[in-house]
């Protein structure tokens, strides 16, 4: 596995941030929401490793706890999208006919909307919460996995081992679950991994605009919200969350590339 550098690098980065998220309480003594009036906008120091924000909250702590939110939203949203996409896509591909035509038209229609603005619009009119964000991103990203699994299954369907499964009496459900999906999920997995990076990006964007995760719950995006007003005086509020987002997304991209090579 070491030979596959992308896979190794990607996995390393993601393990790093996952550890950060899980071990947050042990990595810092400060509460992420703890306001400290006497230490506003302090640059990185021995006491506050990454500095403090305009309310005196420890930035490092907010980033560690923020990892929890950003990573979980990313993974859950992609989970929703993938499950939905695989469900619709595989049924459409397997049964074909009108079902397939309808689904593909639905996909085309959904793809007409510029996704980010669609999400923005929905977020603007709904209650901002972690649950809602996961749903919104999930329900607007199922098209890609659906198309991927559909094209894989369409080509697999005619392969002899599927015909053989039919010949020995396997039911449609058995064929889909035991024969088609295990062989078709490869590209979907790669796409999902990339998608997590994308979902984190979307969540950060929403939170940055104030439509996502609401403070005091920290997310990398809403930490950046402050950076708008403090850019000149407190570079650390922009740089550190920005770096976290950048490196995490890179990590998922590397992982996806590594998986792609492995699946071949």
């Amino acid at each position, binding site marked *: 596995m070491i030979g596959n550098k992308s896979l190794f690098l990607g996995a390393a980065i993601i393990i790093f941030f996952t550890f950060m998220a899980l071990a947050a309480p042990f990595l810092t003594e400060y509460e992420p929401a703890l306001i400290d009036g006497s230490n506003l906008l302090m640059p990185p120091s021995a006491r506050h490793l990454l500095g403090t924000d305009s309310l005196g909250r420890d930035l490092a702590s907010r980033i560690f706890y923020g990892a929890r939110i950003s990573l979980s939203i990313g993974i859950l949203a992609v989970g929703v999208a993938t499950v939905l996409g695989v469900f619709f896509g595989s049924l459409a591909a397997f049964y074909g*006919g*009108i079902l397939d*035509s309808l689904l593909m*038209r639905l996909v085309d229609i959904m793809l007409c909307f510029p996704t980010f603005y669609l999400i923005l619009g929905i977020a603007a009119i709904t209650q901002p919460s972690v649950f809602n964000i996961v749903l919104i991103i999930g329900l607007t990203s199922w098209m890609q996995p659906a198309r991927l699994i559909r094209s894989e299954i369409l080509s697999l369907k005619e*392969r*002899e*081992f599927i*015909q*053989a*499964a*039919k*010949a*020995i*009496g*396997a*039911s449609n459900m*058995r064929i889909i679950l*035991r*024969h088609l999906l*295990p*062989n078709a999920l490869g590209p979907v997995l790669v796409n999902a991994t990339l998608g997590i990076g994308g979902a984190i990006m979307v969540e950060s964007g929403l939170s940055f605009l104030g439509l996502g995760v609401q403070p005091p719950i920290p997310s990398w995006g809403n930490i950046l919200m402050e950076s708008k007003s403090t850019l000149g005086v407190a570079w650390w509020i922009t740089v550190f969350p920005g770096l976290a987002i950048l490196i995490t997304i890179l990590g998922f991209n590397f992982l996806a590339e590594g998986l792609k090579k492995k699946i071949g």
Partner: protein
Amino acid sequence: MEKILELRNISKVFSIERGLFKKEIGGLKALDNINLSLNEGAVCGLVGESGSGKTTLAKILLKLIPATSGEVWFNPNKITRLRKDVQIIFQNPYASLNPKMRIFEIISEPLVIHQIVPRHQIKDRVIQLLNRVGLDAMAFSRYPRQFSGGQRQRICIARALAAEPKVLVLDEPISSLDLTVQAEMLDFFILLKEKLELTYLFISHNLAVIKRIADYIYVIKEGKIVEEGTSWLIFDQPKHIYTQQLLASAKN
């Protein structure tokens, strides 16, 4: 000798579809009014070149694809469950096994689906089947990619036999294998038939192979049966010009 199954006036047209609602705009006639009957315990040979429709015929026989018209008849006294009593071996051993399934799972699947043996006997039955096709139990946890073409074909046979079939349809089962392996497998097929009292429909373009194994022969060309008869008759006194051409090319 009783008739065990029959293809009656089978025709198959592959339609070409277009548009949102998959409207039919044309067709490819793969089979044209095929009549074929298989007697219990016999080896029926189907001789045809590529594109003749022989594989389509096999798939229609097993009801893997529907015929456009005509009937596939099974003797209700002999064949009670199609998916159990009639099995097929495909041509390409590299594509007939699920690459993500272990050999044990592949062979036990028919046992599970048709509940042929109780759960606790599945393992033993799979070992038995592996031995019958000349493989040992070490194959259990391996994947298809770890086996050669000839071995994969044997695994396919074990899978087919697991269902305890009465009829075996063999679609060019040895054509993709090396010459020496072909000869071994042919002997094996002949032995298997005797031992398990099977009925075969053996499809091949290789006349020498058909001559060795088949009792009764159908010759198919471009979707039509052009000649049929006992093996002796076909090889000694071919009547249709296509049959004569095939024999001439093979001998020349």
